[in-house]
C-alpha cells in the first residue's frame, strides 16, 4: 500500500499537479447485533483503497480507487489531475494552503485489548445476557443490543514531504428496549442514543456496567407508556451529559466550521450564523460556558496525531468564558479567519472520499458541583435524559430536541417520570441562559457517531465531553402542544 501511495503521488506530480497528497487506507470492522434472543446481524468487513487529492492551477481534483495494482494507482492519480484541470477551467480564486511542517511520524491510538482478538463467542455471550435481562421485563416489545469495532490504518504522503502512518482502534456498543401500545412507541437506550463509542480496545466494553443497567432501562421503557405527558411551557431545564453532547454538536460544533461560515456547504448542510465579524465579539453563552476543541483528547473519536491535511493535532477554545473566539479550520481556509496556521480539522470518512473540515472533539468544560448539588439547587424544573430526535435550521439558530424521558424536579427531588419531552430554542439565547455546569466528577466523553456532512455524504465520529448543566426558562412541548 505504501509503495502504491508513493507511486500515485509521483504520477500526480508528473501529470501536472502543483500539490498532491495520497491516503492509502485499510479498514477492518466487526458489527454484531442481537434482537429478541436472536443474532440480528453479524458482519465482518474490510476495505482498502487509495484517495488522491491534487491542486492543479489552484483548483482541487480528487479520485479514489480500490484497484490496488500499479496500473490502478497510476490511473487514479491521472484521473485526479484531469478532474483538477476541469475545476480550474472555471474562473476561481486559487487555493493557497497555510504552511505546515512536512511531518514524518507514526501515531497510534490507545488500545490495551485488541477487540479483533476477542472471540466472537465472548461478545455474543455479553449481548445475549443483556438481551435476556431486558426481555425478562414484562411489556418489552423489542430488546436490541450491539457491539461495533473498527480499525483504520492510514498512510499519508504529500508532495511537500509529509509521510505519516496512523492507526486508530475504536470500540462501542449499546442497547435499546422498546415498548409499544396502541397509541405510542417508547424506548430507552443505554449508555446513550446510537451507542457509546471511544477510541479504545475491548477494555472499553468491559468498563461499562451493562448488566447493572439492562433491567432498569427495560423497566423505564415500559413505564413510559403510562407516564404523564411532559407539560408545555417555559421550564428550567437540566440536560444529562449525552443529550448535552448532541446539543454541543449541533449548536456549537457545526456553526463553528469555517467552510460552512464561508458558504461552502450552502447547498446542503447550510451556512452559519457565526460569521467572521462575530469572532471575539459575540456573547455566545453565559460566563460559565467554555467550549474547547481538542484533537488530542485521550480516547476521543476525533483524536489523531495529524489531520488529513497533515496538520498536527491541537487544542483551543471555540467559546471562552461565554465569548465566541475560535473556528474549526483547514489549511485552505485558515487565512480567511485571520490565522496563519490551520487548526487541523480536516478529515474524511475513508479512502473513497475527499477530506474536508469536520469537527474535532468538542467539549463543554466542567464547572463545579455534583448532579445532586444541581438538583438540590433547582426549585422546579425538568431533568431530561437521552436523545430521541434532533433538528436545527441551516444557519444553526432554531433547534428542537426530544429526549427519551424527563424527570420533574420539585424542591430538589425527582417527583415523577414524564414522557415525550421536547425542547426548542435559539442557540445564543439558550447558551446565555446556562447558570450551572456540574463538575469534573460528572464529566464524561460522550460521542456522536452519525454526523453527516458533505456531498457525497460523509459520516464522522466525534467525542463531546459534558457534565449535566442547567438552562433557565427554555420552551418545552413542541409537537405535543397543539
Amino acid at each position: 500500500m505504501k509503495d502504491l501511495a508513493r507511486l500515485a503521488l509521483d504520477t500526480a506530480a508528473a501529470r501536472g499537479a502543483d500539490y498532491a497528497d495520497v491516503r492509502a487506507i485499510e479498514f477492518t470492522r466487526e458489527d454484531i447485533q442481537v434482537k429478541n434472543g436472536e443474532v440480528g446481524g453479524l458482519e465482518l468487513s474490510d476495505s482498502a483503497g487509495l484517495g488522491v487529492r491534487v491542486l492543479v492551477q489552484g483548483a482541487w481534483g480528487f479520485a479514489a480507487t480500490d484497484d490496488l495494482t500499479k496500473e490502478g494507482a497510476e490511473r487514479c492519480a491521472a484521473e485526479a489531475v484531469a478532474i483538477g484541470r476541469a475545476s480550474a477551467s472555471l474562473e476561481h480564486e486559487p487555493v493557497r494552503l497555510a504552511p505546515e511542517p512536512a511531518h514524518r511520524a507514526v501515531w497510534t491510538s490507545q488500545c490495551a485489548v485488541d477487540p479483533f482478538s476477542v472471540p466472537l463467542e465472548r461478545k455474543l455471550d455479553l449481548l445475549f445476557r443483556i438481551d435476556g435481562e431486558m426481555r425478562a421485563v414484562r411489556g418489552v416489545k423489542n430488546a436490541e443490543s450491539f457491539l461495533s469495532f473498527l480499525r483504520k490504518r492510514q498512510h499519508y504522503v504529500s508532495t511537500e514531504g509529509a509521510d505519516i502512518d496512523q492507526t486508530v482502534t475504536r470500540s462501542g456498543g449499546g442497547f435499546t428496549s422498546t415498548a409499544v401500545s396502541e397509541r405510542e412507541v417508547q424506548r430507552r437506550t443505554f449508555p446513550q442514543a446510537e451507542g457509546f463509542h471511544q477510541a479504545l480496545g475491548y477494555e472499553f466494553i468491559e468498563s461499562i456496567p451493562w448488566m447493572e443497567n439492562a433491567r432498569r432501562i427495560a423497566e423505564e421503557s415500559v413505564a413510559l407508556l403510562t407516564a404523564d405527558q411532559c407539560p408545555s411551557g417555559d421550564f428550567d431545564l437540566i440536560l444529562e451529559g449525552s443529550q448535552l453532547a448532541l446539543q454541543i454538536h449541533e449548536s456549537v460544533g457545526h456553526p463553528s466550521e469555517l467552510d460552512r461560515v464561508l458558504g461552502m456547504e450552502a447547498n446542503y448542510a447550510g451556512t452559519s450564523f457565526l460569521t467572521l465579524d462575530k469572532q471575539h465579539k459575540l456573547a455566545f453563552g453565559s460566563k460559565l460556558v467554555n467550549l474547547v476543541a481538542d484533537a488530542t483528547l485521550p480516547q476521543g473519536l476525533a483524536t489523531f496525531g495529524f489531520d488529513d491535511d497533515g496538520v498536527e493535532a491541537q487544542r483551543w477554545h471555540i467559546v471562552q468564558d461565554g465569548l465566541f473566539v475560535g473556528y474549526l479550520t483547514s489549511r485552505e481556509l485558515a487565512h480567511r479567519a485571520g490565522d496563519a496556521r490551520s487548526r487541523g480539522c480536516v478529515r474524511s470518512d475513508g479512502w473513497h472520499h475527499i477530506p474536508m473540515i469536520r469537527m474535532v472533539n468538542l467539549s463543554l468544560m466542567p464547572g463545579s458541583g455534583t448532579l445532586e448539588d444541581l438538583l438540590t439547587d433547582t426549585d422546579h424544573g425538568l431533568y431530561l435524559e437521552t436523545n430521541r430526535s434532533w433538528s436545527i435550521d441551516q444557519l444553526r439558530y432554531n433547534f428542537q430536541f426530544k429526549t427519551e424521558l424527563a424527570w420533574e424536579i420539585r424542591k430538589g427531588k425527582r417527583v415523577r417520570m414524564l414522557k415525550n419531552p421536547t425542547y426548542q430554542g435559539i442557540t445564543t439565547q439558550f447558551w446565555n441562559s446556562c447558570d450551572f455546569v456540574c463538575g469534573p466528577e460528572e464529566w464524561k466523553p460522550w460521542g456522536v457517531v452519525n454526523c453527516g456532512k458533505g456531498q457525497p455524504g460523509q459520516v464522522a465520529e466525534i467525542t463531546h465531553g459534558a457534565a449535566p448543566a442547567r438552562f433557565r426558562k427554555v420552551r418545552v412541548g413542541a409537537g405535543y402542544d397543539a
Partner: protein
Amino acid sequence: MRREAAHALLDQALSLANGRDVEIILGGGFDALTRFANNQITQNVAERRYLLSARVVEGKRTGRATTSDVSREGIARVLDRAARAARLQPEIPDLLPLPDAQHYTDIDAADSATEALEPGARAKEVERAVRRCRKAGLEGAGIYEVRSGTIGEYGEIGALAMANTRGLFAYHSGTSAIFRVSALDGTASGWAGRESHRAADVDGDALSEVAVEKALRSRAPAAWEPGRYTVVLEPAAVADLIQDMAWISFGALLVQEGRSFLAGKMGTRVMGENITLRDDPFHPLHRGSPFDAEGMPTRPTTLIDRGVAAGAVYDRQTAAKEGRESTGHGLPVPNTYGPIARHLVLEGGEGSVEDLIRKVDRGLLVTRVWYTNVVDPKTVTLTGMTRDGLFAIEGGKVTGGVRNFRFNQSVVQMLGQVEALSRPERTGGVVCPGLLVRSFQMSSGTEF
C-alpha cells in the same frame, strides 16, 4: 461493471463455495460529483469501487463477511470468514434457506451518455448555472453528480448483482444525474434541483434561473407569527416528508411489531380519498432495481389506496410470518430493520404548482424542508425547518418572502387535509406532486 463481468465474478465466487450454501452480493460502481460554492468549483471528485458480500448458511446459522478485495484470494478469504461467523453463533430458529432462481423484469435504467460524461462536461454545466447567479449579483452553490451502479448518497453500497448456490442470479445497473443549485444573497436563498437517469435531462441554467428568482424574492422577508397555515408544498418538500414517513411506517416488520401507524388499521381510512401511495421501481421516473437484497423480484405495492391503508412491503421473513409472498423489499439477511419501501410514488393531479398557488387566498409556499426528524412515530409527527424560499401567498399570488419556520406536523394528518395535487415529478428519490394542504402547523420562528 457489465452483466457479463459481474456474472463471471459471481460464478468464480460460487465456485469456491465447497459445497456450502452461499449467497454473494456485488455492489458498487462509479460516482463523480462536481461541487461549487461562491460561484466557483470547490470540490471535484470521482470514486470507483466495489464491495463483495458473502453469506454462508449452515442449517439455521448464517454469517456474513464483506470485502473490497474481489481477487480470487480475496473472495476465498471472505467466504471463510463468513463461514466462521456462521459457525460461532447460535441458531436462528426461523432462518429461511436461500431462495431458488427467480424471474425478473428488466428495467431500462442505464444511459451510456451519462456513464461517459467527462469532468469537463460537468464543469461546463456548472459554469452555466454560476453565470446566471453571478449576473444577478448572487452566490451560487450546488452539485452536479453522475452515478453509475449502486453507490448511494452516503457511500452506502446497494446490490448490483447477486447469485447463490441454488441457481439464483440477478443483475441491474442504472445511471443517475443530479443537479442541485442554491442562489444566495446573505441569508436570503433560493433552490432548485433535478434528477434523472439521463444527464441530457439536466439543465443547470434553467435550474439556476429558478433558484435566482426565489433568492431575489426572499430578500427582506416578513415575519409572520407561528400558527396553522394553508400551505403549498413544492414536490421537494413533499418528498422529504413522505420519505421520512416511509422509513417508520411501511415496512411489514414495523407493522407486525406495532410500531407503525398502520398497525391494526389495514382496510380502514387513514388519509384523504385523494391520496394513493405506492412503491414502484418500474415507474418511468424511478427506474429502480427489479430485485431486493435477498434476490426476490420487487413487486409494485400499493400502500395507501384512495386514503385507505392497503398494505406494507415485505421481505421473506416477514412474509413467511403471515403466510404470504415477499414483495421484494428486503435488506441483506440477517438484519434487524426489516423491509423498506425504496421507490415511493405518490399519485398526483394534472396541473402545476402555480395552479395550486392560484387556489390559495392567504397562505405560504414552501420550496423545500430541511433537517426533518421524527417527533412521534405512531402519529408520524415530524419536525423540521422550511428552507431556501418560504413565500407569502395572498389572493392566489406569491407576494413576497417570509422568515423561515420550524414545523411540527403529523404527516398522516396532513395527508388527510390535502385539497389539491399537482403533476408528480422525481425529487429526493421520490416521485410525488406538490400539495395544497390546510392547517399545516408552523410552530416557531427563526432569525432569517
